[in-house]
């Protein structure tokens, strides 16, 4: 089995120089090598969305992404979408509206919603539902998650 190869990866605005074997999965690199444990491991199969990160702003499943294939694209994790002080609008609404129960799926939802609102600041309810359809939540029935994302969106009109 080939050993670690040098790897330069831009995570949350910082260029990190590290080394990883060719088969290293981005999720493992983030959680195990870079100690960015906010990104969660729910299934390792791309079915639950708990490991969602942004690649150049686009929600991406880090458990299905090879670390060496990220190249020069920017990786943004839950740690990266969190302001230095306080919470983002999406995070504030998730807290205020009880959109997080056990919280294990929450970072994935926050990242997905952040990606959605960056490209579509005023989504309709249907657009929100479509955007989060790759993220599973077993606690909330999605009701308060959808409410929170809509509340965090820019007011229309």
């Amino acid at each position: 089995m080939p050993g670690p190869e040098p790897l330069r990866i831009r995570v949350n605005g910082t260029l990190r120089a590290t080394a990883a074997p060719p088969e290293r999965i981005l999720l493992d690199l983030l959680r195990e090598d870079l100690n960015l444990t906010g990104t969660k491991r729910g299934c390792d199969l791309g079915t639950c969305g708990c490991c969602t990160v942004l690649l150049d702003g686009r929600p991406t499943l880090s458990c299905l992404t090879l670390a060496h294939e990220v190249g020069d694209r920017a990786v943004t994790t839950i740690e990266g979408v969190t302001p230095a002080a306080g919470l983002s609008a999406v995070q504030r609404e998730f807290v205020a509206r009880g959109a997080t129960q056990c919280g294990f799926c929450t970072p994935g939802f926050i990242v997905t919603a952040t990606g959605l609102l960056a490209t579509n600041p005023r989504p309709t309810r249907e657009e929100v539902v479509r955007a989060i359809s790759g993220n599973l939540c077993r606690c909330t029935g999605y009701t308060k998650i959808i409410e929170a994302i809509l509340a965090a969106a820019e007011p229309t009109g």
Partner: protein
Amino acid sequence: MTDAVGPLRLLGSRIPYVEGPLKVTGRAEYTDDMKRPGMLVGRLLRSPQAHARIRSIDTAAARAIPGVHAVLTGDRYPTPFGVLPITHDETAIAVGKVRYLGDIVAAVAADDELTAERALAAVRLDLEPLPEYVDARVGLTPVAEPIHARGLHGTNIQKEVVQHFGDVDAAFAHAAHSVRVRGTFAGVTHAFTEPLVTIAEATPDGRLTVWSATQVPHYLHRALSEVLGIPMHRIRVVKPEVGGGFGGKSDPLPHEIACAALALETGRPVKMLLDREDVFYTNHGRHPTQNDVRIATDAEGRISAYDIDAVIDGGAWSSFGTVTTYYNGVLAMGPYRVPNFRYRGRRVYTTKPPSGAMRAHGGTNIRYSVEVALDRLAEELSIDPFDLRAKNALPPNSTTVNEFRITSTSFAKCLAVARARSGWDEKFRRLPYGRGVGLGCGFYISGSNSPIHFTPKMPQSTVHLKVDMDGGIAVHSMQADIGQGSNTLLAMIVAEVLGVDLDRVHVQRVDSDVSPIDLGSYSSRVTFMMGNAARTAALDLKAQIARGAAALLDCPVDDVEVGHEQFRARGRPGASVPFLDALHRAMEGTGALTASGSYQTRPVGGSFKGARAGTAPAYSFAAYVAETTVDVDTGEYSVDKVWAAFDCGRPLNRLAVEGQIEGSIHMGLGQVMGESMNYRGARLLNPSLLEYKIPAPQQMPEVEVLLVGDDDPEGPFGAKEAGEGPLVATLPAVANALYDAIGCRFTELPITPDRVVRALERRRHEGRPWKGA
């Protein structure tokens, strides 16, 4: 200073979860987020056969691999365990036999994942195949090779319950009307998002620390002690944040014990993270079930008898199964008056992943059949389904025929509000073909009156408080917040009683070294039991601080009133002292103040065998209306809206209660619309979240939560449970709505589109039009 708490400032409002900011930023710490120095990777080898005698397991080659630190088989720690003291039939690693495809046969600890996997591949198993028992019914009579020696009379029956109250045969003989429904239910599983995970570390001071994703730290603590042979006081169990449980993290589980065993064996910390497939094999989800429900009534629709039979597929182990067997009968005792009652329930071992407790444990499948039967009765008697239920509602302060003590019930109000809000009278049988409304009702325990391990002489919950110079109040309790908001409720109760802001109250992580025992998150017990314990502890602390306030205000302690962050002297407007000043005065000569409160159930129920099963200090009630639209060509249907009228007594945190109801409806919809553990023989076909589909956001209906409960006389501040009862009414409400939409009865779950199409074809074939179509 009296025990009275004035107008409520926090309780009854909508309080965001105290740990919310940590969860939305990824800063909440779950077990898999933790690392220990020198930590090894633990892995489990699972049986490729469903039922086999273990001839030998050769681990020599696996042990010889560099980087492998330990390879354990069942003979190392063979002591059986189980969540119920009377049915210890599980082992951490299989001993002598494997009992399902996925049973654990070996555990390894290695430097890294790849080495661990190589070690598993190097273990040589020699298994002698035995007959597989996939269908529970086969195990009702003697079998060639019983799965467990403890099966009754050479069968695979784990538990048989036979109960008869009144005279059911006479009631049916004199009945004006009767119906029968036979329900068939596929197994479903919890599908929490955080996989099962444990870290264990044995340290040179002779102690063992176990961090685990568990709902019931205390039962894990006991099982570790029993199996590993270490006294409980030398074991420390810590519960980090838990990513959902729904019952699936309530048994002590084999991987938790195997992980601890590897830590003892290697002297190194070991992390055992199960992959998603392993989580499905661990299961302990809702039992595949067949039930047969007969209901007799008089000519006006008053229920005179229930006659129930249930065959429950337990899978390989007992788990909570003895309780499950009782619950599948006795949880039919409400919300209606049932003067005569007969039940036979049999839980049968099969060579499949073990079934266990899942949200609304034991109350879901029987509720479905009863509520579908009542829908049929209403139609056959030409009585509106709401009127039929109202006519039979259990009154407050009554006793059921099996001696359940019913105190508060707002069931009649649930019915009235659900009927009015849903526009039932304009919709029922009046919506066009393909659209319909249905009613389903619910009843569930607010905690089990009988603690599993203790006699009722021991409290079910204890809460400790400590406050020092800083004025922060530390709260210790082994209640397990798994996302339902119990930490928030604990903080709210303490802050409410003391009159302080919520940010003074710090609920501590569960740690058996410092947390007093609470039996954890199962049986919908936490709000009621922990809530009462917390209230008692807070009242004690308030009385201590009030002495300091009385000294500063120069008034008798009985005249001290709690204000917001201050204490006042009754009858002296403007005379007040800040909370901190009163605290510091009260601490003179004593230092930090501590207080303890506990909750103990009082004896209730009958004295016959099994009388304690289903007894609870209070019960929740529900009436749900679901509205559905069916595509009569494809059989696909949507649930468009659910009106959820629920009696949880006084809702203490409305945000959390709504969240429990919305989440319960989502989970109930999963079971009724599509979730199913599918098997070919004994092989689980869909052990992934891709193939085992929980409802997507697109499938989630609008939910109108209607909280109508009156205060419960014994619940903390009048509250009852809201964690599990909200699930049960969902399933029959949908099934009965489908009947109203298309005239087809469904008695087999899940109701998938292909089953809808077949039912529609059958109805057309029989030439029985429905609503003109």
